[in-house]
């Protein structure tokens, strides 16, 4: 591959991995638990800003007229950890704001919160340098451990993002396939019923709000280390809908569906238009991105609300050992093959006596 193509491919791979982490985080909230987090992008922004502040020197170090709080110049991977924590921490007060709201009202409140956050950060120039934002955020290990050549460095970063995404995949899947995941889906379907069965719907939502926020923060940190700057225009509220469209198109509450949705919507639609000829006036095609994404969202909500890869139906065989080895069992090593489950009596046999 020539250097240009190689750079392009590795950039797309990076964007795919980073966005996928964010999409999984949002799907855990929206698809699995039924939280309409229309402010999701602010959690990604919190992660990006946190990563920036933690890896940059203090503002006066650069003598460039920038003004922002902190500047700790921590070594990799601490800024990334900080980004994850920042996303999760931001979820605490935000979940408090929306704890009493459900459905449409919650979505509205969060959407407004997203707008307020952008306005606030833009106006407070001392906080995160307002509309100028943070720039020259160092790429981790660039030129020290890893090569200073942009293309080969990018492949290393790609590998790192792929590794993180894989870890996130296993974590998210561990959650959705566990009994806790079942509680989450139950919360999505009926909170009153969940409460009537002795589970706190509020607690489950709270945990997932924080967990999803942390994943958004993580993806924000990974993203800002790649693009090295971060301004309020990078996290305007429509970005949340980009993630949401990826979820709806691919299939909510399905990790594989999320992969497909991210590929088609975030990478596909956005990148495909890059190769279209610029017609009428420059920038028109780019703006049409959003029109196409909006139409895709509407079309899927209307004609195929479950997405391309619908949520899996969890059948009885899943809970009865020995009947079927699922892919989960093979991957997670929890199959009945160990024999530990063989002791359970009377599985699969209708009981004649009433007990």
């Amino acid at each position, binding site marked *: 591959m020539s250097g240009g193509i190689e750079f392009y491919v590795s950039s797309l791979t990076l964007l795919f991995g980073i966005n996928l982490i964010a999409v999984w985080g949002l799907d855990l909230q929206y698809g699995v638990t039924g939280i309409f987090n229309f402010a999701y992008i602010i959690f990604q922004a919190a992660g990006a800003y946190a990563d920036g502040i933690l890896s940059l020197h203090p503002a006066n170090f650069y003598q460039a007229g920038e003004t922002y709080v902190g500047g700790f110049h921590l070594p990799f991977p601490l800024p990334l950890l900080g980004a994850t924590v920042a996303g999760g921490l931001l979820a605490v007060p935000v979940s408090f704001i929306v704890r009493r709201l459900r459905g449409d009202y919650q979505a509205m409140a969060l959407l407004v919160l997203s707008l307020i956050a952008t306005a606030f950060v833009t106006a407070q120039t001392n906080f995160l340098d307002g509309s100028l934002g943070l720039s020259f955020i160092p790429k981790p290990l660039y030129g020290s451990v890893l090569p200073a050549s942009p293309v080969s460095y990018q492949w290393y970063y790609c590998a790192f993002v792929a590794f993180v995404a894989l870890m996130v995949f296993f*974590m998210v899947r*561990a*959650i959705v396939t*566990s*009994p*806790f*995941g*079942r*509680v989450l*889906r*139950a919360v*999505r*379907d*009926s909170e*009153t*019923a*969940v*409460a*009537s*069965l*002795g*589970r*706190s*719907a509020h607690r489950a939502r709270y*945990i997932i709000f924080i967990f999803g926020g942390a994943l958004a923060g993580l993806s924000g940190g990974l993203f800002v280390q790649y693009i090295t700057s971060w301004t309020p225009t990078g996290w305007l509220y429509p970005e949340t809908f980009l993630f949401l469209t990826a979820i709806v198109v691919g299939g909510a509450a399905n990790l594989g569906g999320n992969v497909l949705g991210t590929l088609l919507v975030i990478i596909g639609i956005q990148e495909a238009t890059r190769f279209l000829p610029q017609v009428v006036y420059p920038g028109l095609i780019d703006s049409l991105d959003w029109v196409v994404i909006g139409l895709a969202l509407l079309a899927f909500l209307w004609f195929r609300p479950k997405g391309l890869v619908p*949520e899996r*139906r*969890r*059948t*009885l*065989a899943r*809970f*009865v*050992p020995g009947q079927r080895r699922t892919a989960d069992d093979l991957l*997670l090593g*929890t199959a009945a093959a*160990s024999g*530990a*489950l063989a002791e*359970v*009596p*009377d*599985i*699969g046999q*209708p*009981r004649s006596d*009433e*007990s």
Partner: protein
Amino acid sequence: MTTVGESGTRPPASRLDFGGAGRDGPTVTRDPLLSVRELRVSFGGLVAVAGATFDVRPGTITGLIGPNGAGKSTVVNAIAGQVRTASGRVSFDGHELLGQKPHAIASLGIRRSFQIANLFDSMTVIENLLIGARPWDGENVRACFVGRRRWRRRESELASKAMSIMDHFGVRKLADEVAGNLSGGQKRILELMRILMSDPKMMLLDEPMAGINPVLVQTIAEHLRRLRDEGTTMLMIEHDLSLIEELCDSVIVMANGAVIAEGSLEVLRENEMVVNAYLAG
């Protein structure tokens, strides 16, 4: 023997003489499991429950009857903690219920059914049942990452319990069906089965038989009676008086948000006020 107040005032609930019609044995004299005192619920200007007072003794099926709008479902909702504006006192097994969260009340061993079956519509029948089990440590976040083998084992135990319950009601073949696709009657049965998964101390049933075919009604009635004999206490809203007569040890009659009479159905049938409430309601 009983006076009824005009709407707005609180009529005293009188305990009618059982006249030998009540169940004999120790349950009659035991302390109530659930005791409701001066329960008031209003929604804005509408007084839905105006000072209801009654007891439910342990190991009995107590019927809750009354015309539409009498406040029966609101009483059940208030006991289950799903009404924020309730005042008065509701005590269960030594715990005060009013002011507690619904899930905290449920964790005391109270399970309820809803007037309109309230299921997890996108989940399968078996999943609906599994989540009906008592909360257990496999549902903690930590269990997502550690001890998977242990909770898998517990989960398959729960699944076999769910299967035997499904067998009992003859709906095993629906195990993999999505709850939202079930018929109205099947939804009610699923809701009841979901309650049974937790072996509750007390069940609050809001018209559990509505929309269920007569043959299955008998199966369910039989099951409820057996649960009662095993010690489960029930408060059941029901409009079918023959069913009430067949199942209930004692009956509470509500009208206009108040308890107007209490006792066995035979005695209540003679009570002019009860008859009027039903006819006028």
